[in-house]
């Protein structure tokens, strides 16, 4: 690990069309309340009242209470005078809007309970679990070799990262070293995966706030990345390519040309999108100063990745806890300042460029050698050896029936996925299946932090904010 701090790059001075800190320049009652709500309290001091408000179940009760009142008035048991303004009639003016689980801009099956006062969101309650398939339980029934087929389906837009986190955790307990070429292939694929995932984010972010053409553009470049993945792994998604012990296969012939082609096409696309969006007044109106989260809130809620970096936290696991030899590559970590949707946009655009920079270096410095560990207890023997060696045949048979055994222990391994810190907490009991596999999903934290970003903002902004945290519901529900 190098001692150099994370490098701040990019000029994130927002264009002067609209100051991003409009809230601070003209404090209003809403801004006051917002600040009050966004305060982080210190443990041990008196517990503030707003915490319960932000998370409790009260929203539904409030509607029922209002309905009772309305029914009573209709039945005539209560006489209400319309001309008398009641000070405590706040609840009657609020309505609950149920956004999702079937909604085009919830990025899956996320449901948001929005409590509205006019067009202002007063309370948000994310409701998740619609995509829960018990993958952590399933993981306990699969061998370590089968495990990566399971975990790759969690965060389906950045499959390589989940596979990598899982493989690294298993390798940590096994004590298996991956040869340089295997590590470089992992870096190449994960960084390209970051680009493809960010392109999906760009496409959906654009579409959610009305730039429909972004949807087409984003998918256009993403298709190039996915085609490359297909050529390498055989699958467009859910690759099951990065496995404990290395990667499943070597890169195909002519991969250099494919990567060269990507490195030519994708950056050109990114430049085009930046021209389209960076100073687009509609885009700025919809994103600057919207969905703000502060660094303190990021820490308290465990918000990581581009969302935290846009808030000004220079924190990238690739720099801080380097894995898979990523510290050999030269790249910068973009850090924003305002923590709003626009800064997240800028950070992600810069991240794509940095990832392509790493890809370029991986292309130029790809070491020769084996792409997986030669520990035959962990990785299958080459096909040729099976015909001539009894031992190889036994290894092959044992590996695919019984799987390899991982020494007892527990470990936590995190990687920097396109969404943030993706961690695998693995408990092994000395057998060939994990005793416990827990995945710390970045989207889970980000969805949890939605109330912080959305409370007291306009309902129209909820879509922009939701898109900007880039949730993958497969990751949230697992």
């Amino acid at each position, binding site marked *: 690990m190098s001692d150099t701090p994370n490098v701040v790059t990019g000029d994130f001075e927002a264009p002067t069309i609209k100051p991003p800190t409009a809230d601070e320049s003209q404090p209003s009652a809403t801004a006051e309340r917002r600040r009050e709500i966004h305060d982080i*309290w210190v*443990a*041990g001091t008196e*517990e503030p009242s707003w*915490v*319960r408000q932000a*998370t*409790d*179940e009260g929203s539904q009760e409030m509607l029922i209470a209002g309905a009772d009142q309305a029914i009573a008035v209709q039945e005539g048991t209560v006489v209400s005078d319309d001309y008398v303004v009641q000070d405590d009639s706040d609840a009657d003016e609020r309505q609950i809007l149920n956004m999702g689980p079937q909604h085009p801009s919830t990025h899956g099956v996320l449901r948001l309970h929005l409590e509205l006062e006019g067009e202002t969101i007063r309370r948000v309650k994310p409701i*998740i*679990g619609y995509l*829960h398939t*018990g993958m*952590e*339980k*399933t993981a306990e*029934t699969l061998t370590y070799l089968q495990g990566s087929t399971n975990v790759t389906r969690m965060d389906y837009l950045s499959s390589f990262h989940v596979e990598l986190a899982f493989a*690294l955790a298993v*390798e*940590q*307990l*096994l*004590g*298996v*070293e991956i040869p340089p070429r295997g590590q470089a292939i992992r870096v190449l694929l994960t960084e390209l995966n970051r680009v493809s995932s960010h392109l999906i984010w760009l496409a959906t972010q654009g579409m959610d706030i009305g730039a429909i053409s972004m949807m087409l553009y984003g998918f256009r470049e993403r298709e190039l990345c996915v085609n490359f993945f297909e050529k390498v792994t055989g699958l467009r998604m859910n690759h099951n390519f990065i496995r404990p012990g290395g990667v499943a296969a070597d890169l195909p012939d002519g991969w250099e040309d494919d990567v060269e082609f990507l490195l030519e096409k994708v950056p050109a696309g990114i430049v085009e999108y930046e021209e389209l969006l960076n100073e687009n007044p509609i885009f700025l109106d919809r994103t600057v100063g919207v969905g703000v989260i502060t660094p303190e809130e990021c*820490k*308290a*809620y*465990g*918000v990581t990745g581009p969302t935290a970096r846009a808030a000004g*936290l220079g*924190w990238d696991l690739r720099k*801080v*806890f380097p*894995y898979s030899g990523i510290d050999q590559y030269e790249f910068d970590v973009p850090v924003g300042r305002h923590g709003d949707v626009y800064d997240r946009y800028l950070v992600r655009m810069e991240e794509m460029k940095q990832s392509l920079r790493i890809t370029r270096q991986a292309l130029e410095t790809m070491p020769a050698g084996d792409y997986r560990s030669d520990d035959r207890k962990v990785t299958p023997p080459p096909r040729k050896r099976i015909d001539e060696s009894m031992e190889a045949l036994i290894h092959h048979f044992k590996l695919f029936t019984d799987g390899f055994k991982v020494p*007892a*222990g*527990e*470990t*936590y*391994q*995190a990687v920097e996925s396109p969404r943030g*810190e993706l*961690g695998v*907490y693995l*408990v*092994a*009991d*000395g057998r060939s299946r994990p*005793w*416990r596999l*827990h995945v*710390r999903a970045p989207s*889970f*934290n980000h*969805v*949890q*932090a939605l109330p912080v970003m959305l409370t007291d903002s306009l309902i129209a902004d909820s879509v922009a904010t939701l898109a900007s945290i880039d949730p993958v519901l497969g990751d949230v*529900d*697992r």
Partner: protein
Amino acid sequence: MTDQDLPTTDTAAGADDPVLAELAVLFPDARFERFEPPVGPAQDVVHVAPADYLDLVTAARNAGFDTFVDLCAVDYLWRDPRFEVVVILGSMELRRRLRIRVGVGGSRPTLPTITWVFPGANFYERESFDLYGVTFDGHPDLTRILLPDDWEGHPLRKDESVGSVPVQFKEAHKAP
């Protein structure tokens, strides 16, 4: 799973670390370990009793571990206490992590909530409650999060079966 092959960590000096020494003074009963995996960086682990759990989390936060990373439960079926809740805290300034492991047993495993220290623990505690039935005292909204509200049982417990749905094939009853 017998007692011999229970997951263990390598016991090594952890208390000579200035940050952890500070915590070790406050919590003499807590057991500090440093787990050094064959590959990868060392990991600091602290075992703590349920009674000291909330205080330790608060103290760790004040000692600089101010970033919430992860919380999950583990079911060690034949061990006493049966469950273990694992909290991972991070520090961006110190660039390190601390893993807090607390055993919790009994027919109704209960721990105090740390939602008031780290609001990010909210969903994770709900998840642990949902999947393992570990309750967290003082939690603002301890309801099921991933499973439907009318679900019975806690499916990630080791004594819950994986279950299966019988598949009725179209041609099953037809004579050959």
